[in-house]
């Protein structure tokens, strides 16, 4: 379970998240909001990429401030732009990067890489240069790289923003099939209709927290 206790976050004088307290127990939670509403800062707090200026973020009881390493093992993070997330030049090398960081035995790394490649239809591309993949394939590789690490939770920060319709659907399908708890930051409201809970942020505050239908209706009225 993910829990935020009295979390405030600021950059210098600018407050981006104000006094948030909430528990995320559902399997699929989405966070939506306008530009500058604090969505990305919210996402980055969840795996300790950023630490709150005040308050606590707890992941399955682990504090991101004091247990950062353990938290990052439990929370995978998929960024908006896969080009900035793929670290190694070749597909299978990139998949192995996170697994090597977990210091897994060579055989297990191999097995997990094979499984991730098969799961995301990347087996044929295992020795392919990553920079030559399509946008959708790159995003799938980014998801596969995180999935192979078998985190308990995965945070997606606008994963479909840069994709065309076909690739967007492909990535959406891959996300829908994930067994993990998912927290998704997105502007793509269609993607969130099947989620369990949608939180609407505005100027760093929660202004709606509901099932997708009512929350998205509220958001659309507010943005009109």
């Amino acid at each position: 379970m993910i829990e935020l206790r009295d979390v405030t976050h600021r950059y210098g004088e600018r407050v981006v998240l104000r006094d948030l307290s909430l528990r995320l127990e559902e399997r699929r939670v989405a966070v939506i909001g306008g530009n500058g509403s604090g969505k990305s800062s919210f996402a980055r707090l969840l795996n300790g990429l950023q630490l709150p200026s005040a308050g606590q973020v707890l992941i399955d009881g682990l504090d991101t401030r004091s247990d950062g390493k353990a938290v990052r093992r439990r929370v995978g993070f998929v960024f908006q732009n896969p080009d900035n997330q793929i670290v190694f030049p070749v597909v299978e090398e990139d998949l192995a990067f996170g697994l090597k960081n977990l210091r897994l035995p060579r055989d297990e790394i191999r097995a997990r890489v094979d499984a991730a490649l098969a799961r995301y239809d990347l087996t044929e591309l295992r020795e392919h240069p990553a920079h030559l993949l399509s946008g959708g394939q790159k995003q799938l590789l980014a998801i596969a790289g995180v999935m192979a690490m078998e985190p308990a939770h995965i945070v997606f920060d606008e994963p479909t923003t840069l994709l065309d319709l076909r690739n967007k659907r492909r990535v959406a399908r891959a996300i829908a099939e994930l067994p993990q708890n998912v927290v998704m930051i997105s502007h793509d409201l269609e993607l969130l209709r099947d989620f369990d809970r949608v939180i609407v942020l505005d100027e760093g505050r929660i202004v709606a927290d509901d099932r997708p239908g009512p929350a998205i209706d509220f958001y659309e009225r507010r943005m009109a």
Partner: protein
Amino acid sequence: MILSDYLPGTGLLWRLPPGIKLLALAALGTLLLAVPLLDLAAITFVAVIALYLGSGLGWRVIWGILRPMLLILAIVAGAQWWLFDALSALMVALRLAALLLFASLVTLTTRASDMIAALERALFWLRPLRVNPAKVSLALSLALRFIPVLGSITAEVREAQRARGLERSVIATAVPVIVRLLKMADDIADAIEARGYDPGNETSRSTGETRP
């Protein structure tokens, strides 16, 4: 053809340990620079071509590597001809082409991760100097990975500036490229950290006070 393009294969060159290939590259470079003989440069050039052909890498691959370098080879050889003579120009061109082809042969037949692991082992002596070999090797890997990304960013910015009639302005291209690279560097650092990279006990976690 760029240095990071590994070509999958199963031949002898692919199976050789990366350390041996890197040592051979260093030795060949030293030999060619230390012994400035036309015969040696010519024999080496022919031998490297034979290695390509013997490994199943055909003339198309060789041409793909040499073509982008032709202008530079011509300039270097032209300068040698002007300063010395035609034979000297030929020797320098053959020497440079042989080295370039051999370096490319190493990258074509070696996965980046294997090469980086070999470099990491070879750089153990940096530890007493408080330099972490793991960080150096990751930096090299990132350089290989992001050379093509840098190229595509520059091309995008150039195109955008051309559309605005600013194709002759170096600043109009350089500034947006640098801004995007800095942003990208920030994102990559986050991505590496998010995937559990830990080269030692050092961490680079943001305290949340400086990032936009």
